[in-house]
């Protein structure tokens, strides 16, 4: 599994897998996935993109195809353009999914990936454009939830709200989504990916200045996941040190690793 960073996106997809959102879609696209992965391995991103676009036309709600497609777009851009990629390169992804969801208005996971296209562009964009992209991503995540209020979509949107500075007053919206996702996961057996929600929900409480509630959530998380470095890091810090740590985790200029591949490798 490619664990570049412990990022929310990977974990939220784990939730999708385990809540039965994805698995049924896998079988239909195995061949395309294999072909695209071979192209990706060979750094033939153009082929991968073409294959995955065609596959998504036939299987628009397949979250794995969408995730791999976005990775192909990202890797191609980063390979040919220094830093975080050329912002224009990500417009292909946005444009593709815009048309895809127009033709498949009930494809919840397509909307989710559509939102992630915007997230993928954020690190490459200027500071004002980042705000516009983040806002558009929220719109697409909302549509995904409206179609099917899945754990993954709620977690994604809730976590996204936390990236907004406090001044915009979105922390409460984030906490509301994350609490809904928390209720969902409470009804399931404990999964590895659940630790992500403990982290984010605690962060949400922290952003609301409810330090005690935040620490309680992180403590509950670490009682279930004692090896979680991120939970431990939060519990080990206080005051300005904790603020610096969380601010750094939620820095919009740092690329959020939206490679969702982890879920297919996680057991």
């Amino acid at each position, binding site marked *: 599994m490619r664990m570049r960073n412990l990022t929310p996106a990977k974990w939220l997809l784990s939730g999708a897998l385990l809540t039965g959102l994805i698995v049924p879609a896998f079988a239909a696209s195995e061949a395309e996935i294999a072909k695209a992965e071979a192209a990706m391995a060979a750094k033939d991103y153009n082929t991968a993109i073409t294959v995955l676009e065609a596959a998504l036309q036939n299987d628009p709600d397949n979250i794995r195809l969408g995730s791999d497609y976005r990775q192909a777009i990202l890797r191609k851009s980063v390979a040919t353009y*220094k*830093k975080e990629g050329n912002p224009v390169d990500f417009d292909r992804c946005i444009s593709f999914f815009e048309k895809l969801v127009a033709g498949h208005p009930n494809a919840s996971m397509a909307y989710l990936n559509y939102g992630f296209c915007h997230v993928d562009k954020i690190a490459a*964009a*200027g*500071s*004002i*454009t980042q*705000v*516009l992209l983040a*806002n558009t991503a929220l719109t697409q995540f909302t549509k995904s939830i409206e179609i099917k209020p899945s754990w993954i979509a709620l977690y994604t949107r809730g976590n996204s709200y936390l990236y907004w*500075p*406090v*001044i*915009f*007053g979105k922390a409460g919206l984030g906490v509301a989504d994350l609490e809904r996702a928390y209720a969902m996961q409470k009804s399931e057996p404990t999964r590895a990916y659940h630790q992500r929600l403990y982290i984010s929900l605690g962060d949400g409480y922290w952003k609301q200045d409810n330090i005690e509630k935040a620490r309680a959530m992180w403590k509950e998380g670490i009682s279930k996941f004692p090896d979680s470095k991120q939970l431990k890091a939060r519990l080990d810090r206080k005051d300005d040190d904790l603020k610096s740590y969380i601010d750094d985790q939620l*820095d*919009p*200029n740092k690329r959020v690793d939206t490679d969702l591949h982890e879920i297919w490798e996680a057991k």
Partner: protein
Amino acid sequence: MKLSPTGARFALAAIAAPLAVWGWAEATATIKFTEMAAKAGIQTNHHTRVFPGKAADVLRMFTSGGSSGAAGDYDGDGLDDLFVTDSDNGKPNHLFHNNGDMTFTEVTDKAGVAKGNDPKSIVADALWFDYDNDGKEDLLVARFGTPILYHNEGGGKFKDVSAGSGFTRFGNTIAAVSFDYDNDGLTDVMFGNYFKPLNLIELPDPHVLPNDLDNAINGGGVTLWHNDGKGKFTDVTDKAGFGKLTGWTLDLGHGDFDNDGDQDIYIACDYGTDRIFFNNGNGTFTDTTEKSIGFDTRKGMNAEVTDYDNDGYLDIYVTNITDEYMKECNMLWHNNHDGTFTDISKETNTCATLWGWAAKFGDFDNDGWPDLYVVNGLRSAGKENYIPVLLNNLLLKPGMDFTDVRNWPDIGGMTWSGYQKKKMFHNLAGQTFKEISGEAGTDNEMDGRGLSVADFNHDGKLDIFQVNADQKAIFYKGVTEGGGNWAQFKLTGTKSNRDAIGARITVKAAGLTQMREVDGGNGYAGQSSKTVHIGIGKATKFDSVEIRWPSGLVEKINGAAIGKINKITEGKGLQTK
């Protein structure tokens, strides 16, 4: 942090530095300033332009950058005087004569330099330069309009010679620098223009604001004017290679970035990429932005130039916006010696200065390492914050045209990035900086704009004049105790331009080599002294002093004095101590 080649160099240098500068570190003192604008008689109050009509509020906000100050010795008495701008209709600019005892006397009316803010024009910047090499500093007043050129007639009087100067092209000019780009012995002028050339007061078209807040291409760019002699300037913008620029220029910083003897230029732009141009030595420049620094999407506000790490190459400091809602980070462009630069603002602790404006280097403790003072703050007003209003009523509204001034929500009594504490950075031997504004006494919360750094009373301690938007000016007297030794150099060109702008002085003392250039107005909305101030720590003598003049003459100077102003004339060496 990724350890780039430059980063690796810094890591190694950090180990070596304590050894290399061991003797200098002993001279380190606590940098201190005391505010005395009122006592000095220079507590001017700036007024931003009040516009007519529905768009008044927004336009006033967008043009609130016109508060500037320029230090220059207009009467040749060896002391830097001050010219301070205002911006509202009918408000006078101010000329203050330096009495030498940290007091000033206003001489604006006698000098005849008050005008500039008329119903069609807004004063935004000012510059002292001796355009006709007659030994008297002339005055250029840049405007949203056409500039005003004053010839220094002597006897404390100035004459408006704009009409015959060739400066007839309208521009919404926010920045001006003078340097001799073709080394012909006459200082030329570059203007940085914010809006496209359209009169904002008459506003024939409301679509005047940035077409993209990260990649705008509908700004005013720059213009370059060749000094033909005899008081005439010719627009050479296209010929020199700047004609295609359409950025929202906010500041200009010149210097010989590649040590080839001619002056290059850094152009800081709001709402999009900065630009860097290298001088080809034949009257033209090459845009090397992509190779040298890469394209950026930040809000460039300032371009200040010095060799902060004493490696013999000029570096560049650019302020951007780093606030709760926008995390751009400033840029400290470290010169890689090969035509490229690496931003090391994060590594050097100079990244975050909130809503940045002017920044100026100066060796405030005379330890041989240029320190850095940065002002910030856009609009300090009521408790309500404008940012959420802007976000919800413009930025996130589908289909909104950002260029249309009528679409921007009124700011009324709201605050936007206001009440921000200024930043004073102590240079720690060229390796990193430490923020010390609180202990230095410079952590004011005014809406800062421009800075002028000079030793106004010749006590060997640099002072700072800070102008603010719609607020009173601040004057910091340097009162650092226990700082290092120092020397100042007043250069006069003969074959080169008389101001010696672009002249490079290299001194060696106690094992440290320092290089500084005379600049013609680098840094946002403020001109510092053209007398070069160099701190030398515990050293009591120079091992060598060398001047490289713009003419190409390299002159070794013997007998330069410590603790005094050394007057040096091109080709004639040291004139007085």
